[in-house]
């Protein structure tokens, strides 16, 4: 944690209210996000219990599995979820703009520009908490290898239509989260804790109710008190005043309310199945419906606070102006969405269970690039973030006190002017063996300079290296003037991608050689059914 974040937390502790960590919003927010609040069944991995989902905060759709161990009911839940989520994801697919992408020409091996479609916007998915993101990933994993009756007429337990497709989309969204700065799938707790510091630990910040209490406490109450109530307050029946934002439920709720309701549902179902004549069947159907309604009401009461909290979090974050470079990163999210749309349309198989050696290395490389990009962009967008970098000596603000023209000693001299600046910051320049480079923003790009020497305490000389045009004299406006105030960073503003990795079929012997090509697309089969899978 940077010093300035520590300070903000200390100030939050003292004042009882969260302190801002940012002056701009560092994540793009869609005008029409799809919010999903999932609940899972305790002790039953991957058995959804219920969810609230929708784009209208006043009218969420409640989906419930009244008996989570019943696979048919689970499938029905997932089919309903697909029915809600997929149309939203699809609604962005056909609104495209022309764009260019660099591709390798398979014949010449050269990099060429290819005209492609890019979706103008992309659907955004919001969940309450980080474990919600993990749950999205788990749902994706559990669905994408399922086969529908249409795909495989011999499948013993065919999945309803669309379930594999929803699994592929949720997998894509779950995987995209791992790219730093990506905003296709966001969680409310991360959004809030990126922009505010509370007076509690970052572990406690994972509780959406408590986090929101610090940032936006009820009138006349301190954040700390409100957070404590949100975390531990219980009503007369021993139920939490602020139920957890899922996917895990509170054990007290499970034991005291949910388990009896599910038992009642089971009994009603058994009675209905055992009904002997039309009249009693009608009555028992009514009992079954009532039992199901009871489960729905219980889950709705658990889910609604998290639903409203998630929307409230969006309101708070949305109130901050979006950082200019967050929009640039959203374009990358649009590329990601468009790319997956294209793969689905091309009929490609679902994402593999495990990445290949080359696939994993590519992902890691691109995420490292994105991480460096995110750190640079957030600092450039936001003086408060830049202040943290200045405190660690990775950036410094300065005033230009002298400019001296100079050129390279080559056949065609190019400008290398010396700029003397005064700074009150303590940049980590020199001392090591290597030449230190610094960067500043210029005309939407950046200009680099190298550190020459310290002239006196707080006064240093830099030599400009580029972005001064091709002529012998620097282009106007490219060299700072005396009196200019400039923020230099020791980190580059733009990131270069790494070297190209081999194609998967050329995986070298050190990494196990090329992956085996499975016959009959065996790699996309669902997990084999074991006796444990059946009740």
């Amino acid at each position: 944690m940077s010093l300035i974040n520590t300070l903000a937390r200390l100030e939050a502790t003292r004042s009882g209210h969260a302190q801002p960590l940012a002056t701009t919003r560092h994540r793009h927010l869609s005008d029409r996000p799809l919010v999903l609040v999932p609940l899972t069944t305790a002790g039953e991995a991957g058995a959804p219990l219920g969810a609230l989902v929708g784009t209208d905060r006043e009218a969420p759709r409640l989906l419930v599995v009244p008996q989570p161990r019943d696979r048919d009911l689970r499938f029905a839940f997932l089919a309903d979820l697909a029915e809600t989520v997929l149309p939203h994801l699809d609604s962005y697919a056909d609104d495209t703009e022309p764009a260019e992408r660099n591709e390798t020409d398979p014949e010449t091996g050269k990099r060429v520009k290819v005209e492609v479609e890019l979706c103008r916007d992309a659907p955004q998915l919001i969940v309450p908490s980080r474990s919600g993101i993990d749950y999205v990933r788990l749902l994706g994993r559990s669905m994408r290898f399922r086969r529908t009756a249409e795909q495989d007429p011999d499948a013993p337990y065919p999945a309803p239509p669309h379930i594999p497709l929803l699994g592929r989309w949720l997998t894509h969204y779950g995987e995209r989260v791992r790219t730093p700065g990506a905003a296709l799938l966001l969680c409310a707790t991360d959004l809030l804790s990126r922009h505010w510091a509370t007076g509690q630990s970052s572990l406690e910040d994972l509780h959406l109710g408590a986090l929101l209490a610090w940032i936006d406490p009820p009138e006349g109450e301190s954040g700390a008190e409100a957070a404590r109530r949100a975390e531990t307050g219980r009503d007369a029946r021993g139920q939490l005043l602020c139920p957890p934002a899922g996917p895990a439920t509170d054990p007290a709720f499970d034991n005291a309310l949910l388990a009896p309701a599910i038992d009642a549902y089971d009994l009603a179902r058994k009675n209905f199945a055992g009904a002997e004549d039309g009249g009693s069947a009608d009555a028992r159907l009514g009992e079954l419906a009532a039992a199901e309604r009871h489960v729905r009401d219980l889950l709705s009461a658990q889910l609604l606070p998290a639903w409203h909290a998630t929307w409230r979090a969006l309101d708070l974050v949305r109130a901050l102006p979006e950082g200019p470079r967050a929009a640039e990163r959203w374009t990358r999210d649009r590329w990601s969405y468009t790319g997956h749309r294209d793969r689905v349309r091309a009929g490609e198989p679902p994402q593999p269970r495990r990445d290949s050696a080359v696939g994993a290395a590519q992902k890691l490389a691109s995420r490292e690039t994105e991480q460096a990009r995110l750190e640079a962009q957030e600092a450039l967008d936001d003086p408060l973030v830049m202040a943290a970098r200045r405190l660690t000596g990775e950036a410094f603000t300065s005033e230009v006190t002298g400019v001296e023209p100079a050129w390279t000693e080559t056949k065609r001299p190019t400008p290398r002017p010396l700029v003397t600046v005064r700074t009150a910051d303590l940049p980590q320049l020199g001392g090591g063996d290597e030449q230190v480079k610094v960067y500043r923003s210029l005309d939407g790009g950046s200009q680099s300079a190298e550190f020459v020497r310290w002239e006196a305490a707080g006064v240093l000389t830099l030599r400009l290296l580029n972005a001064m045009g091709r002529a012998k004299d620097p282009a106007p406006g490219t060299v700072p003037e005396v009196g200019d105030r400039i923020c230099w960073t020791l980190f580059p503003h733009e990131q270069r991608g790494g070297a190209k990795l081999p194609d998967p079929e050329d995986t070298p012997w050190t990494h196990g050689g090329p992956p085996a090509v499975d016959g009959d697309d065996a790699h996309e089969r669902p997990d084999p059914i074991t006796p444990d899978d059946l009740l």
Partner: protein
Amino acid sequence: MTRPPADRPGFDPGAEAARATAGILHDTLHGTHRGVVVDSPPGAGKSTLVVRAALELASAGRPLMVVAQTNAQVDDLVLRLAEKQPDLPVGRLHSSESDPYDKALDDLPQVRKSAKAADLAGIDVVLSTAAKWAHVKGVEPWRHAIVDEAYQMRSDSLLAVASLFEQALFVGDPGQLDPFSIVGADQWAGLSYDPSASAVSTLLAHNPQLPQHRLPVSWRLPASAAPLVSDAFYPYTPFRSGTGPEDRRLSFGVPSSGSAPDRVIDEAAESGWGLLELPARHTPRTDPEAVGALAQVVRRLLDRGGAALSERSPDPTPLTADRVAVGTAHRDQAAAVRAALAALGVTGVAVDTANRLQGREFDVTVVLHPLSGRPDATAFHLETGRLCVLASRHRHACIVICREGVTGLLDEHPSTEPVQLGVTVKFPDGWEANHSVLAHLAEHRVRWVPGR
């Protein structure tokens, strides 16, 4: 349990090392395997081995590429090759940035330098960094490669260069810092080709039959340091020092003034280790008192006219600034130490983080303990390799500056990293290694309350 060979009476370090080297060269030149792995403890002659293997391969007429991890390592190898065999044509592939290689290479006529691999075609030995090699495409593969510091190379960077060679010698120190990534890579933990793991772990996971060798003797570490480093960091692959207790001596012309810095210097000169312990306190990373104490120790080291006697020459060599290094865990600590040294008028002492001191050697090192003054012990600060690097750079003595209370801190922070399926658990873990180093250092403790 059989006694490790290093403890055998009558152990002849020179002969043992020569036997190990001969085995390695035999497997490299005449072996049938595509790879040979060599584990080398600190200062065991890794670079010497790389140079020797390169020369033998070149003289056998086998074109060779050498992959190192940093430009400084590549330049160092080029200079060593040139020193051993001045008539051997050597290619130095470098980046296209400004000032890409050591200027000393310009004085060597047999070294051709280029940013394009095609310009260096036909040269017996071509050296570059892994990052630069990754950009080389469309060339005939080399028959042989030597990968230096292979334990510090990441699996994905081996993936990018492995198609450039047919067989390879991988040399490295398993006890030093593992490679790291700036983003989480837990997703791939346990996969044989986890891209964030070290190149050697991926290589061996896929090719378990490859011959593995070990250099048994550290020529750098003195007799006072080898047992501690070996026990704390290499408990299952012990090594010993090439020199005996009488072969190295550190003495000072100016007698001790009785101050704590002088006393800890004398303790370290006598025993090889010194711990300057400041009172317990939670401090920021750049603890001003600890940094100040460290600077004073360095100042006194240089002022007291130190002389280092070793097996290298019959006469003692003066302990000058370039023979002293300061090691820290963080870059801001290094910057703070540099500033403090500059304020005391000390120049020419290398001050850097553990990462950057890897592979370097000094007569005396002064180390700011990674856990000094911390309220917590994170995985970063507990990493075995970090402490191992800091405790194994010296030929004569190592002085550690630390706040009291680290033992208690360790006890309050047992390792809590989740165990990942399929990942080989590293022994010893940093917690254990830290405890054993501290227990040893405690015997060489000098307490100091600055300002008194």
